[in-house]
């Protein structure tokens, strides 16, 4: 398992190195030589990792993801959250995330999650929007609730 993972890792870096070196051939002068050299070194190092794994003949196990369903749930929820930040607004999407992610991960105390979500979002609002006055994506529900958007 570990051996196969390292071979794939090495080959990915070989691919990255070759792509970087090849793209650098289109850059002029010293501005191209430096990334080209780096690409070649990355290719060699990736090759060394893969070769070392091939020669090691290791049979040891290395778990890549400890709890795949939980990890995938977290990643997918994070992707949906990031996708919703601009259309829905920062605070609305964050509030939804605070409720949805713990529940998706198996947390069943809805009221507890709701209280933590409200307190946390309030603290974030006070720190970032009131104290630091940082501009964040506007709330889509703002005009409907009379906040002016």
């Amino acid at each position: 398992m570990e051996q196969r993972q390292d071979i794939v890792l090495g080959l990915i870096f070989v691919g990255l190195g070759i792509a970087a070196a090849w793209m650098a051939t289109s850059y002029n002068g010293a501005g191209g030589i430096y990334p080209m050299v780096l690409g070649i070194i990355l290719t060699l190092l990736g090759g060394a990792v893969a070769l070392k794994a091939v020669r090691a003949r290791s049979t040891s196990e290395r778990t890549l993801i400890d709890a795949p369903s939980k990890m995938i749930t977290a990643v997918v929820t994070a992707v949906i959250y990031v996708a919703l930040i601009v259309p829905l607004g920062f605070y609305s999407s964050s509030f939804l995330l605070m409720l949805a992610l713990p529940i998706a991960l198996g947390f069943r105390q809805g009221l507890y999650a709701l209280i933590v979500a409200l307190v946390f979002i309030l603290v974030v609002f006070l720190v970032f929007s009131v104290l630091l006055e940082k501009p964040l994506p506007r709330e889509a529900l703002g005009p409907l609730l009379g906040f002016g958007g």
Partner: protein
Amino acid sequence: MEFYTQALSSVLTFWPLLAMIGATLLGVFIGALPGLNPVMAIALLLPLTYSMDPLVALAMVAGIYNGSMYGGAIPAILLRIPGTPASIATTFDGFPMADKGEASKALKIACWSSAIGGIASAIALMTVGPLLARVTLFFGPAEYFWIAIFGMASVGVMVGSDPIKGIMAAVLGLLIGTIGIDSLSGQARYTFGQTWLLGGLDLIVVLVGLYALPPVLQLAEKCDLKGLSAAQLKLTDVPFKPGEIRSLIPTWIRSSGIGIGVGILPGAGGNIAAFLSYNAAKNASKDPDSFGKGNPQGVAAAESGNNADNAASMIPALALGIPGNVVAALVLSALTIHGLQPGPQLFHQNPVLVGGFMMEMLITSLLIFLLGGAVATRVFAQFQRLPGVLLVPSILILMCVGVYVINGRPIDLWVMLLAGIAGYFLEKLNVPLAPIILGMILGPMAEQSVRRALLISRGDATELLTRPISATLAVATFLVIAWPIFKAIRRKKANAAAVE
């Protein structure tokens, strides 16, 4: 001396003081929560400091760094769960002490030891830093090129379990550092026609992704739905025996020395300092068998060792512009955010700022004495009753808000997510993440230095090796890279001989 009195008067004003107190408390809280670490916290904090006074921003970095190193000892002692990687060695004797009903005593020793280690380290920074900066006035582009390469090679070789993967990570960081407009020729590199890539990838965006997302995903995988019960966090007071505190003094001195030495070396972090200090205390003890069974000397050694690493790791960062670890890299980022160039000129052009930061490292170490006592520790321990599963979305929101406010671009959120997912898998495959960040920071400096050196010498590459300092640094770099290869060959030969 005037350097420090001026700096002290700037630091002892309302906002820097408030920032130090708040950040030290926040640091202890972050360290006390397993899954959160100082790098993650400082990375999340940096984007918010853009509009702040540099001394206030650096006060927050110093507070979080020193506070979290002590905070990591709280779950290490109470639960045998190291709050940060640097507190692993604290579990060896801290938890057996708690098991014997001496948790409160162990926490007091950890608090005092952390403060003493931190103070010793800050004094080392204040004395060695300016001296080293003076030496670097003799450096030209060739020396800067080699010092950047030496820093990266050391970190690449030392931080991970596989030196090839470490160096590979550093080269990847160097390549990422070339994305955007080349400052010398003006041509766009690896931008794929995207205008948002012309300025390169933002270091903080990549750093927040690499360092904050993997622990968040691991917290989600652990899926802690309950938190800890009040009974698990109960502390009872046990008085110190006569002479017990005095017997810790030699350990504090020895471990602080070790921590400072390790801190100056690039690549070696607080966990190595703690392990070395723990082993040294065990070797020096008349009763080494008592270690691992609740010996207070073990807690004192580990905690003073890991805190003594903190300020010392800033010595090469401030004097040479070469960060030895990721927190030092973050401090350099904080300086560059405010338009300051790390390196020898920093000491001459901004003495109040450099001296002020050194003072802040010292004051936040002193604050651990005041803020990290048993009462505060009881309060911080209560945060561990919060179910881990509720921390996952909270940190994710802080990551997004921190990254978004840097440039106000949604694309940065996607870059952060991608960097985080890549970081999660790279860590699992034993590819260290620190060299990637150091490569991104040092890459532009290494490239500009080598190209300037070649321009000065009219393309003569021997210029990079013929000056005495650059030649020494080149040899040192070669040795750093060759040493693990030499060790591997020797191990192989020994194994072959054993088989025969």
